[in-house]
């Protein structure tokens, strides 16, 4: 009787979990294994995949100049984006953790900026960052007497800084939400006790704030690192890799290989390279940071 009940409970549990099991199997495990398989094939979509062994990887690392360009662009972008997030996110979160009149208004605006959506944002930035007519250059350059032209997105030198700035403008608010939430969770009496005990601002940061947000800050570091390799939509919308490959990051190159050149096997191999690079970096980031 009791055994029967236990078996029944197992069956019910399995039944309730089955949609999720099907989902994970069909839309996570299988596609992942498919990527691994396809990376050893040549697959132009009109013919079935043809096994080519390690050819794709050999091409990537020895013959493909665009891959070299894309790694260079990815590294520049990733360093710029991650440094921005890692430094400015905690700084701004701490600022918005102060209690003052109107604070929640600004936090809501910050959250809207975080969740704006890549396509509307890109449309706005195209207008705002227009070299001669956009209000950004007017506000920050021309009205201060600068006479040169600042060509965001269309000059080789400014395209990448432009992309870093634009993605930080949505990335910083996004990651700050995590930290603002975590900081809000620190009980007030912690600060009070520290204050009464004569702790300086730096000591309060070091011994009260930092330990309690450390897990979520680590989370921010790792997820921002991963996502810095994933910004394909932004690059697709704003520069599409140009000018002359200056912003053809690896994620965009994967998209180009698959959906523009129809080299699905090659794109799968590039995907695995990207996954390997980001996993290794995350491993080191976690190792260094969790000390």
């Amino acid at each position, binding site marked *: 009787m009791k055994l029967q009940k236990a078996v029944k409970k197992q069956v019910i549990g*399995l039944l309730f*979990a089955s949609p999720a099991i099907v*989902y994970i199997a069909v*839309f996570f495990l299988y596609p992942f294994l498919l990527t691994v398989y396809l990376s050893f094939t040549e697959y132009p979509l009109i013919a079935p995949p043809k096994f080519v062994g390690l050819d794709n990887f050999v091409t990537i690392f020895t013959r493909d100049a665009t891959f070299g360009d894309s790694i260079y662009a990815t590294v520049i972008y990733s360093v710029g984006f991650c440094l921005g997030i890692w430094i400015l996110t905690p700084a701004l979160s701490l600022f918005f953790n102060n209690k003052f009149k109107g604070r929640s208004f600004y936090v809501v605006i*910050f959250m*809207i900026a975080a969740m704006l959506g890549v396509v509307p944002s890109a449309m706005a930035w195209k*207008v705002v960052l227009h070299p001669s007519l956009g209000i950004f250059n007017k506000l920050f350059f021309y009205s201060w007497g600068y006479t040169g032209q600042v060509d965001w997105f269309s000059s080789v030198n400014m395209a990448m800084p432009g992309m870093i700035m634009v993605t930080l403008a949505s990335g910083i608010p996004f990651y700050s939400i995590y930290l603002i939430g975590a900081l809000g969770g620190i009980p007030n009496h912690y600060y009070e006790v520290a204050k009464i005990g004569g702790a300086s601002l730096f000591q309060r940061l070091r011994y009260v704030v930092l330990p309690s947000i450390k897990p979520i800050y680590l989370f921010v570091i790792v997820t921002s690192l991963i996502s810095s390799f*994933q910004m394909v939509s932004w690059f697709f919308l704003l520069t599409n890799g140009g000018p002359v490959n200056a912003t053809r990051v690896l994620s965009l190159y994967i998209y180009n290989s698959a959906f523009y050149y129809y080299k699905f096997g090659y794109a799968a191999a590039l995907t695995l390279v990207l996954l390997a690079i980001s996993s290794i970096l995350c491993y080191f980031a976690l190792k260094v940071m969790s000390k």
Partner: protein
Amino acid sequence: MCRKKIDKRGLARDLSFNVASWVILLIFVLPIYYIIAGAFMTREEVYSGALFPKSLNLNNIGIALFDFNMLHFLGNSIIFTVIIVVLNLFFCALAGYALIKFDFPGRNILYVLTLVAMVVPPLVMIVPLYLEVRQFGWINTPLALIIPAFVSPFGVFLMRQYLSQVPDSYIDAARTAGYNEFEIFLKIIIPLSKPAMAALALYRFLFVWNDFFWPLLVLTGDTWMTLPVALQKFDAQYELSFYELKLATSLIGIIPIIILLIFASRILLRAMSRVGGIKG
């Protein structure tokens, strides 16, 4: 906030924090501001880089919605977002409930895979997922968008975490009262998990509403195209022109986000601070 005496030092402090907030927010607000302002500007104003619209004319929004058919794409976006969010709520709650309150073969494997699926970046999946969906014959049908999103790994994780607070005795009591297992889920578990479901609904709404890359690949025909993709196609087709209409369309696209966050920012804050529970 009722102070009997106006505290001068407090006032100065509030004022300086407000000024500092505006300085900090300036760059983050720029795109939001220009979408709103530009949507009401005339073409000449947008193309001369005006800061404010001279008058609030609704022409751009009307032209975008009706002459360029954005109303249809807006409708598609609403339909897809609602369907996916509802499916996510139901199936994530169901799976989260099973993971925390039932013991079944493969439970731990499912949980670990859910966590991995949460962390593995979506881009890694895009090439094989596209091939899979193409094989199923779903390209340019609503299924291509809905089925690969009917469960959200983050949602399963969130519901499992939340339901761990529900005492087993509630469920046992319902069993003794003669409820069957599915009734327990519908009548006990779902009402109990309302706060977590609200957070999940908001989180998923924002992501599905804004999703651009996947719909761009699988829904290329006019019938089911979503608003962000339609806007991008419009932008690509008329490069450098009609920016007043593009900004108006952007405004249509961000209004739901603005309204939701004005009323429910706390819920989102709670949802996102919960992920800190997983270690890296």
